């Protein structure tokens, strides 16, 4: 039988709900409503009056080739960072799951990067990738000028993507390892008896069975690379050189806070929000269907 809580005092339940409600209202619904308002109006640079603009902000945004270049860059960034991060995390999780020597150590070591704040990691990676002194910069000693993220846009974008992927490995690793350890050990053993080598077993047996986790992580990583890339880019490249690392979330910030184009930035943030909502929807809609355990 279901028991439902009943409060004699009509105010008490609202008081209990208040902290959460206030948080959501102040930090989500209020900014979102402001962004919506700005996106459909034209705000004066120094404030003091809005005029209704309808879809004009969006139309000028979608007519801007520089914006589409940013969208393409974001998509590349998202896919590359997700694939690298998940690929490495899965490989590590497979090794840890196979219980090679040192598993206990690696199990915790691999998770640490997740605890590092993005800007801190960004600073560290700037040193690692610094063309004049960093670890990777050493290649310049052999082939001078072959590596320089400060002037070469591809190098800069690659550097940020690698750092982003590195930060996500810990998170992905935990989920992959948990999913792999949920699988009965005898399945993999049956595969071994059937003559499949470890790599074949991974492709034929383990991957299909952890598909729900793969899908979940795919969506989470894509969302994260659309939104969380800001801290890294701001610390490492500030969108440069020549906009080569300017992704959607960073252009939004530059246009709004540097360019003082509140309305254009608001329209961009609405587009980004719709993108994330769509990904989240896909996640909820399909992730449940793909489950097939015993």
């Amino acid at each position, binding site marked *: 039988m279901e028991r439902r809580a009943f409060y004699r005092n009509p105010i008490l339940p609202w008081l209990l709900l208040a902290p959460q409600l206030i948080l959501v209202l102040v930090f989500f619904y209020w900014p979102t409503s402001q962004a919506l308002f700005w996106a459909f109006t034209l705000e004066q640079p120094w404030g003091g009056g809005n005029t209704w603009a309808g879809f004009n902000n969006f139309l000028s945004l979608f007519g801007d080739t520089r914006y589409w270049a940013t969208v393409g860059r974001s998509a590349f960034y998202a896919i590359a960072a997700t694939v690298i991060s998940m690929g490495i995390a899965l490989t590590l999780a497979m090794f840890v799951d196979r219980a090679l020597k040192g598993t206990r150590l690696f199990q915790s070591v691999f998770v640490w990067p997740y605890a590092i704040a993005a800007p801190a990691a960004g600073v560290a990676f700037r040193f690692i990738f610094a063309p004049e002194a960093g670890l990777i910069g050493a290649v310049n000693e052999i082939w001078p000028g072959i590596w320089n993220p400060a002037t070469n846009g591809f190098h800069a974008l690659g550097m940020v993507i690698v750092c982003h992927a590195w930060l996500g490995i810990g998170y992905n690793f935990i989920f992959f390892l948990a999913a792999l350890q949920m699988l*009965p050990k*005898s*399945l993999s*053993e*049956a*595969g*071994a*008896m*059937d*003559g*499949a*080598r470890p790599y*074949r077993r991974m492709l*034929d*047996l383990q991957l*299909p*069975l952890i598909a729900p986790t793969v899908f979940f992580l795919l969506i989470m990583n894509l969302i994260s690379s659309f939104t969380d890339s800001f801290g890294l880019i701001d610390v490492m490249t500030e969108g440069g050189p020549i906009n080569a690392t300017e992704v959607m979330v960073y252009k939004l910030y530059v246009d709004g806070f540097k360019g003082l184009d509140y309305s254009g930035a608001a329209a961009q943030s609405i587009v980004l929000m719709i993108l994330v909502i769509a990904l989240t929807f896909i996640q909820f809609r399909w992730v449940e269907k793909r489950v*097939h*355990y*015993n």
Partner: protein
Amino acid sequence: MTAITLSGVKKRYLKNPVVHGVDVTIESGEFVVILGPSGCGKSTLLRMIAGLEDITEGTIAIGDTVVNKLEPRERGCAMVFQNYALYPHMSVAQNIGYALKVSGMPRAEREAKVLKVAKSVGLDPYLTRKPGELSGGQRQRVAMARAMVREPKVFLFDEPFSNLDAKLRVAMRAEVRGLHRGLGVTSVFVTHDQTEAMTLADRLIIMNQGVVEQVGKPSEVYHRPASLFVADFIGSPAMNLVRGFFGEDGHFRHGKGGMIHLPTVAPSLVSQEVSIGIRPELVRRVPANTKDAIAAVVDYTEELGAARLIYADADGSRLIAVDHGTDALGTGMPIHLAIDEADLHVFSQDTGRRIELGAAQRAATNSRINA
């Protein structure tokens, strides 16, 4: 045809010894059952043959090849797992054919083979189903078909029937036996169920705490148990085991001053700490005035239908007798029991091993083993 030779096989997990050194040869084409209580190391031994566990010490040879360093796929064994370990995302046909697919067999040939094997175990109507849509018995068959399709040199079974209900278990037992007769493949079967073991095995390997207690034909193990453990473990109801010692007067002394007159056995074993054992079906009820009868008191009886079990107390020692009488027997009633010296088993209390008695005992057990 393929024999399996285990010599000095040991297994340790970190510092924990699990298998203490096993020397057994499984003949080509033989059906051997490893029987023992849970935790005795029987599954570990099987998994070492399969290549799923490392061998800490000793060697295992399949045919003429020492397989210690070989991967499971190189050993030519097929295994049926306790929980079947079917691939849940593959259909029955894919499950059965996976080994062939991995080995690179062309699709048409593979499908023909899968169909043939599936037919032989009655699975052909279910080829497109997923394991989740099958009953326990059908899953069991898929697991067997998956093992058969590779035409392995050795079949390994790791308690394959423990998830089935009693009726299905009996049916599957007959099928496995029939399968073995048909294919003649060397088979090793692990179980803790002694009925399963006795009915399936050409030979039994009885294990206890990582040690092989006895290797032998089911009837041998039953009628000439090599140790106290085997005597107690095999048979239901269990063998009567009475602890005590022999006196110079030809009597076995036990319990609270109980005496059993055993004149031919006694002289060689005087004052040794031993246990004597006798099967309940060889304990006879006799009239009160019979010479050397053992006086006892009925504790309780268990009706089995064809016979009944009398649980009796003889001077503080428990004796169980299989009785075909129909008279009323109640708690506390006196009865008289008799045993034949030739039916007796004697075990050293120190080592737990069997002590061989004279020629009469040997002849009696031999006639039963060969019956």
